[in-house]
């Protein structure tokens, strides 16, 4: 388990180091890369907007109350160039998905979506350009 966590942290670090070349806010200025977490909930909305797509997910918190999470991810032009369209996310509206993300440092229910797994087991995942994560 310890080994796995180490790999996960390394992959996360490499992912955002790669992201450092891209012209948008430094991820480390917004997100705490050490706080990668997994959340299961229902997709309520998908905004296909620049500079980040936004996926809205409702999930139950520890107190059992529903929390409305907002996840941003890469820009639409990036998804287009790896062959992913809004419909690939929007088909999950109303369905339960699992999201892997890093959380905003300000403590709000806001994260950077790194992986989404759909009910059928198919997933989309941001990976380092070498192919592994």
């Amino acid at each position, binding site marked *: 388990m310890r080994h796995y966590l180490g790999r996960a942290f390394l992959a996360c670090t490499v992912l955002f180091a790669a*992201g450092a070349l891209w*012209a948008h806010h430094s991820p480390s*200025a917004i997100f705490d890369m050490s706080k990668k977490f997994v959340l299961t909930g229902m997709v309520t909305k998908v*905004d296909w907007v620049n500079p980040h797509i936004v996926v809205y997910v409702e999930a139950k918190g520890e107190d059992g109350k529903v929390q409305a999470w907002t996840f941003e991810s890469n820009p639409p*032009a990036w998804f287009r160039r790896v062959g992913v369209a809004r419909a690939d996310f929007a088909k999950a509206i109303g369905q339960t998905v699992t999201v892997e993300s890093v959380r905003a440092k*300000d403590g709000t229910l806001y994260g950077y979506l790194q992986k989404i797994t759909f009910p059928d087991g198919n997933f989309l995942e941001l*990976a380092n350009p070498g192919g592994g994560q």
Partner: protein
Amino acid sequence: MRYRLFSVMTVAVLLPVFAAAQQTIPAAAKSQRPARTPDGHPDLSGIWAFAIDLPPTALKTQVNGSVSIKTIDQSSRRPAKTAVAGALPSTPAPSYKPEFQAKVKYLSDHESKEDGVFYCGKPGVPRIGSPRKIIQTPGEVVFLYEDISGDPYRIIPTDGRPHRVNANPSFYGDSVGRWEGDKLVVDVINFVPDTWFGEDGYFHTEKMHVVERLWRDGDNLVYQATVEDPAVLTAPWTMPPRVVKPSDDSLEESPRCVEADGGKLLNNDHHGQR
């Protein structure tokens, strides 16, 4: 200095991408003379590779048990990795007058907060880079772009007319073009001073003068720009050339830009290039 660690890690991560970028045009194609328009100029028209900066992450997908990895090719945004025929001598960065160096450093160090492009601002010329589509007619060339801030166009007369006298200053300036041999030379003036001409805080004044050069290298397009602004620079800056591949990826309207996370910035981490 600011992000050397990031840079080193990024180079390591991007090596496979750069390697892929080298697989461009076969040597035989490079030796061919580019097609020409009826008026005898090289034909620059067509759709060219998307050249706006994107995250270099790959996408790993699993569909019905089959896992695949897709990467993006950003070579059209980066300095050419090898010598380019016809390119002007270039330097990696502009030279600012001593009294402005602190300002450039401040803007660069605070890029996440200071760069208008991060807040859906227009990148302007030459930061937007090479056009996505070129329409070339006798006496006029049209550049079309796809950008996060919107999809600008530029109509560039090549019939010898001078710059417009009464044009309002703008992000993309007032352009006139001419042919110098096989190069299209675009002269651009009349800018608003709101943009940066490069990612690292490269501010300018309304007196900025940009000269863009575009030419064919085999099947590819080459883009290189020179920036003059005597008010802040010690000398004109010619950026490294970029080699832009032809593309069959048709243009698509860019989604609206809604900056939502600026308020969540908790520090000033610098963030790379555009």
